[in-house]
């Protein structure tokens, strides 16, 4: 059976309007991410890979082109709808972890449910399962400041998978970690992929990209190669 496409981008462009003039960052990106895919986008700094990730994650809008997420054309949806998609369709993992410093591990992982309006009784088992998945059950009541870099990234991954999203987007997920911890985190991504998660990660590191099943190369605002 042919895998279903989760995210399809056609001719995506993105221009930034600066005082000095218009700066084109994406110049017509065509990309399809299939269900159960584990893809890595590689490229040099400034190649537009993070911008592409933000558009695929509904955090930003393209200047032109179309983007279809799970069968829905989302490039022109209103802000409220995009927030809803980010909440239930997308899981983000950032280089900077991006956890709330005042919240505990449990509260950070449960954060998407606050905006989904779910009951505490429904949320608790889902949060516990996600935290267990990343092996941090013993750190449930700790705040991010009390965790190591690797543990913080695990919390971020738990927050990304807790809603069982259609697509997990990771932007340089090992950029702030040492090589051993990076391998642990990538092994975690591999395990999630084996269990059926669709993952698209962005990196400039070849070793990291090699963990993915396919590698897309970006250059000059376009997908320039695939392996």
């Amino acid at each position, binding site marked *: 059976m042919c895998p279903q496409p989760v995210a399809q981008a056609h001719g995506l462009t993105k221009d930034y309007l600066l005082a000095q003039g218009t700066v084109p960052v994406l110049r017509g990106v065509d990309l399809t991410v299939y269900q159960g895919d584990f893809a890595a986008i590689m490229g040099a700094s400034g190649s537009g890979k993070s911008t592409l990730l*933000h558009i695929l*994650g509904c*955090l*930003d809008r393209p200047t032109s082109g179309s983007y279809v997420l799970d069968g829905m054309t989302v490039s022109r949806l209103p*802000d*409220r709808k995009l*927030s*809803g998609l*980010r*909440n*239930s369709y997308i899981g*983000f993992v*950032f280089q900077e972890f*991006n*956890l*709330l410093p*005042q*919240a505990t591990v449990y509260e950070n992982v449960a*954060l*998407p449910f*606050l*905006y*989904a*309006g779910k*009951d*505490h009784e429904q949320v608790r088992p889902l949060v516990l399962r996600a935290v267990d998945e990343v092996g941090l059950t013993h750190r449930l009541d700790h705040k991010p400041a009390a965790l190591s870099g690797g543990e913080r990234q695990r919390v971020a991954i738990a*927050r990304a998978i807790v809603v069982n999203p259609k697509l997990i987007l990771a932007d340089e997920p090992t950029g702030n970690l040492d090589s051993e911890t990076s391998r642990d985190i990538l092994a975690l991504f591999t395990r999630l992929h084996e269990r059926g998660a669709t993952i698209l990660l962005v990196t400039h590191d070849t070793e990291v990209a090699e963990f993915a099943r396919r590698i897309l190369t970006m250059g000059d605002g376009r997908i320039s190669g695939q392996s």
Partner: protein
Amino acid sequence: MIFVFRRKYLGGVMQIALGSLLQNRLRSLLSIVGIICGVSAVFAILSIGEGAKREVLAGISRLGLDNIILRRIHLPKSQSLSLQDRSVGLQTGDVRILRSASPAVVKVAYLKELQVRVSGLSGQVTPQVVACSASYLPLQGLALRSGRFILEQDEQQKNLVCVLGETLADRLGQQGKVGARLRIEDQLFVVVGIVRGASPVHLKKTGMVVGREVNEMLFLPFGTHLYLGQGSEKNGVQALDEITVKMSDQGIVEAILPLISRTMELSHHGIRDYQLVVPRQLMLQARKTQRIFNLVLGSIGGISLVVGGIGIMNVLLATISERTREIGIRRAVGATRQDIIAQFLAEAILLTTTGGIFGIFIGLVCSWSIARFAGWSVAITPYGIIVPLLTSVAVGICAGLYPAFKAAEMDPVHALRSA
């Protein structure tokens, strides 16, 4: 923009807001000082204003809201001599005229103030002695503690009896009992009753009430003052200091007033040697004055609230700059613009409401202290608590709206990239 708050969502937002505020306890506390001052000032002003209003209104009510009171004006001697062939001031003839002025007049009482010496009292006690008609008691709403009041036959027969105010009776000791004899000037009067007036202690404090200190008065039957060398009778007419006209209903006082005024004007040949006091009008005026007083002072307190609100807005704007990344994180996991607005509004409302609660508490302490040490009358009403509290919530909403919208308008990508 429509906010749909689910109960659990609201609880979650409030919990986050509380957590954020507790992160910076000192800053949060300092930011609400202005609100605390404003709310406590508004609360204290409303409490003092309400206390003063009640006191004044109670005093005016004691004069009888269905009464019209005429008081003698002491004209300068030169003027009174030249006018005495036209008018001799208030006198018993006016009582007869007023009784028949309108069917709405149900009773008329009158009195004359006397300057006499009462034996058995220390020099410090100087009772106000009056010779009054038998109808004085019901018209002033006085109650008898013991014995009886002056009767019409006492007035007609000029019986040497007297009635004491409660405080005066207590000061006189044995002489202040019913049945005792009291020497006034060179006459012996028999005490036949003791009257009790309404709580005069509170009335004295404002100094605004035009009533008499009933509990320190000594009442004699009208006419007996002639035995004490006070006043004289010319052609069956005696001078008076006060006439009280009771109407059948307080609603018709304003309607009858022009008639009474015109009748007196004719009787006194246009000479204003008397003053018309209308308790009902005094009360309406006092209410109006009190409203203006509350409005002016409340506005001054309100300025503190506005300043406090600006302080809160300033703190929230600074907070938003510091929490840009947090806003980005929340937007990334699915928070809508409305969610961000709700969160920052919740923080602002939580801050000002906490300030409001502290302010009410401090206002209570201030009001109690003012009542205790300055002796002012203070009244705490639900209105006095609800108004400043709701105002503080409103200030929170106003102060929080701009920062909340500013936070909500942030670009999520830009917010996530902030340091």
